[in-house]
């Protein structure tokens, strides 16, 4: 009679549970570290163009430049009734029947950005290639108590516009802030 096979042969297959406690420890430490440095609100900036503080010698230089250069001086003014587009020569008038009103009146309680972008595109087409040094810049101004958020919204709409095929194109990327005189 043959021997009964030894029971030891089966001892080798033994499941050892994986010890994941060290990994867990690491996770527990990593999560607070990453939470601390997490960026939940993405910030961005808008650049403004401002002339350097005037000193005696560069003021003279600037006057020189001003005489040589042809300036268009496109200005957008935000009033409580709507936008007024103009330049040093005068203002664009809006609808024929309301001479004194803004160029682009508000629609209800909202500013009409779509119409503004359309008008600015027309202006851009007209002044392009005519040798204006400031053909990419615009002066933004507003009435004294217009909230800042409307200015930022206006800057967004003035710097770039979306083409028919959905690409971003630049309109007047150089922004200056001015005051109503």
């Amino acid at each position, binding site marked *: 009679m043959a021997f009964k096979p030894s029971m030891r042969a089966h001892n080798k297959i033994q499941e050892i*549970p994986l010890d*994941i406690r060290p*990994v*867990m420890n690491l*996770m527990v430490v*990593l*999560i607070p570290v*990453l*939470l601390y*440095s*997490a*960026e*939940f*609100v*993405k*910030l*961005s*900036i*808008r*650049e*403004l163009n*401002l*002339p*350097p*503080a005037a000193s005696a010698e560069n003021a003279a230089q600037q006057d020189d430049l001003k005489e040589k250069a042809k300036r268009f001086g496109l200005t957008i003014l*935000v009033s409580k009734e709507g936008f007024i587009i103009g330049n040093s020569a005068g203002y664009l008038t809006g609808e024929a029947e309301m001479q004194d009103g803004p160029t682009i009146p508000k629609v209800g309680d909202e500013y009409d950005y779509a119409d503004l972008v359309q008008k600015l595109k027309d202006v851009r087409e007209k002044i392009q290639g005519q040798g204006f040094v400031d053909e990419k810049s615009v002066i933004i*101004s*507003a*009435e*004294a*108590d*217009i*909230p*800042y*958020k409307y*200015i*930022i*919204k206006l*800057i*967004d709409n003035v*710097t*770039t516009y979306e083409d028919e095929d959905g690409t971003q194109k630049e309109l007047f990327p150089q922004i200056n*802030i001015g*005051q109503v005189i």
Partner: protein
Amino acid sequence: MAYTPSKSKKHTTLYHEELNLTSMMDAMTIILLFLLKTFSTSDAIISPSSDLRLPYSLSTEAPHKDLTVSVTQENILVSDNRVMTVSEVNPNSNAIGPLFSELSRRATEAKQNEIDYGIPFNNEVIVVADENVPFQLLFRVIYTCGSSEYNKLRLLTIREK
């Protein structure tokens, strides 16, 4: 005499059970990935407060740490130190006196640092303003920054998705 329970059998039911951590590990891995995605190495530029709500903008330009001038609904701060309250602004002048002297002081300091330690003075300032600040106040702050050698201005906004 009562029957004595078997001493050996009594303990056989108490076998050791391992805590199953697999599902917790799954959750942790997902949280870890999410946090890694939002990870940012830059310092916080603003200290949030209830009267400083930034406007939303489409701009995608990333900000970097610089001198900040914050305009909340009540106070004007330079680098998180209060300089003055909004009600102290002189309504008849474009320049804001206390802000101007604070900025000039910092500009002189920065220029001295440039000479002493070679830290370049870049004339840059970030204007952090509440979305309801009136234009006139904003203009005055910008004007004051411009006239005190900080003429590279940036407006801080929240990026819109």
